[in-house]
């Protein structure tokens, strides 16, 4: 007997749930040979708004977790990816990656999560400080997560680049709203399913799919996003910088027209964690 094909309706992972766009719009995704593969949610600015609400709600709870626990959860996310590596590799091959290149990218993505899992309880020791001051005060600086971070991922390395941008932000207790690659959204759809089984509280990472043109202006102006990390072309960079200036948010813009080696050791660093931290300095009086 022949079976009817059971195809999956891709949904995005927002606020710990799998949702369609509130607009009910989708756009077709084709595989490398040009054949129709699936309909991808075409998220709107209202979906972005809802995702930011979900991220803001999850923020305090995530930041209150012990650094050690955040590390455990990030490591477990790596485990989840590792267990479903072949599925992720297949998703990357949809975009034309060779089997070898796809496997290499998945392995690098898992390693990147493990890298940042190791940093969760260590970055504070390097970035925080006790400061010498010329008065009877104990003066120290500690870091705090900024809050909700907006991330806009590039089209190349749709899994590795996305994780490279998300992982350092959540390492320190930020929560994230990320726009996946428009051309290759499927790895992000699968990543959402793995996030859901990784012990990461709902709302810490929210993944949207859709068109950059529709969402970049809202990323720029949304006042509740405290930082933007984006791979963007010159025109988008201008939009993001202008909108961010209005709402006084931090931006780290990576030039889309300059090739980034997402596999390089330089793509992961303590500096990337620092990008989404605020520093708080306290002057504490000490007795003579």
């Amino acid at each position: 007997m022949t079976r009817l094909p059971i195809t999956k309706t891709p949904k995005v992972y927002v606020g710990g749930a799998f949702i369609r766009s509130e607009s009910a719009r989708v756009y077709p995704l084709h595989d490398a040979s040009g054949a129709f593969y699936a309909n991808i949610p075409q998220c709107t600015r209202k979906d972005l708004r809802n995702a930011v609400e979900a991220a803001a709600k999850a923020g305090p709870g995530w930041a209150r977790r012990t650094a050690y626990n955040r590390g455990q959860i990030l490591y477990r996310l790596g485990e989840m990816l590792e267990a479903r590596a072949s599925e992720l590799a297949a998703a990357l091959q949809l975009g034309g990656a060779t089997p070898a290149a796809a496997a290499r990218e998945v392995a690098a993505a898992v390693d990147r999560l493990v890298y940042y899992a190791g940093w969760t309880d260590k970055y504070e020791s390097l970035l925080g400080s006790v400061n010498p001051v010329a008065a009877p005060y104990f003066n120290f600086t500690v870091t705090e997560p900024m809050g909700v971070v907006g991330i806009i991922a590039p089209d190349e390395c749709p899994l590795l680049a996305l994780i490279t941008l998300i992982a350092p932000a959540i390492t320190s207790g930020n929560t994230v709203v990320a726009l996946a690659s428009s051309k290759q959204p499927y790895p992000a759809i699968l990543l959402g399913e793995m996030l859901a089984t990784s012990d990461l509280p709902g709302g810490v990472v929210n993944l949207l799919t859709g068109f950059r043109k529709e969402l970049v202006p809202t990323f720029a102006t949304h006042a509740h996003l405290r930082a933007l990390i984006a791979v963007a072309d010159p025109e988008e960079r201008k939009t993001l910088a202008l909108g961010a200036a209005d709402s006084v948010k931090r931006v780290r813009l990576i030039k889309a027209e300059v090739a980034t080696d997402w596999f390089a050791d330089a793509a992961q660093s303590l500096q990337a964690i620092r990008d989404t931290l605020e520093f708080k300095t306290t002057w504490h009086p000490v007795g003579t």
Partner: protein
Amino acid sequence: MSVRYPTSSLQALLSQIGPVDQVGIDERVAKYGTRSIKKAAKLWGLRTAVTMVDLTTLEGKDTPGKVASLCQKALRPADDASIPPTAAVCVYPSMVRHAKKHVGGTSVKVASVATAFPSGQAPLSTRLAEVRAAVADGADEIDMVINRGAFLAGEFAEVQDEIAAVVEACGRATLKVILEVSELESYDNIRAASFLAMQVIRPGDFIKTSTGKTSLNATLGNNQVMLEAIRDHYLATGVAIGMKPAGGIRTAKQALTFLIAVKETLGDAWLNNTRYRFGASSLLNDLLRQLEKERTGAYQAPYSFSESAESY
């Protein structure tokens, strides 16, 4: 239907006023959420909702200072001076004179809960004395709770007599009768209680869903039952009664949906703060946030708006 009280008296009442089609109500209110309110209509709705808010603080930890800041928030909700003040502030009787100092002589009324709020479990003489004291201190509006124990026991005459006594004690103050719908258990009971109240209160007085002190507060469903009761009472007698859902309305979107229910059930005559109010505190800031979004085009962070009081 619950059998905790003699059904005969309820059935006698329902045979006069008609029972509620629960499935019909739930289906009707589910549709309200699908209306698309955009641009000018949305702006109008948001601003109108601001003028309908009874900005509320009802907590044991209320102080004159906290009431003072609540009053300032009611008078001038946001930096933008074009945003209108709220309808009223709603406080406990002991805070009425403090509130009156700040909003006396303005369009913002002082509403006071009374009658042993929220349980209503005090002797009638005590409850009436509380109402008189609040009115003497300057309360413009009194929010009373009905005797749910008597209602559920089927003592409808007692419930009505007590409301009538409070009406008398109010003098010139507007009365809002809190049915506490979460304790009434069914739409039929909510309709019955609405009519018991409406038969003895004056034109311009209100019926109100809840105290905000129980788990279930205003929902579109019980709001709809009460709006239809008001409509039927108005068509039968010509007496226009106001409505105040309270508790659980936290977002601008919810508020707009409630206004749609009012518009489609009672019409434009009820779309003002002499006939419709929201008992809320956190709602106001979400309305301001959406108004600011409409003004600037950018989504706003909730912490950009001054805190009022958080109670329900």
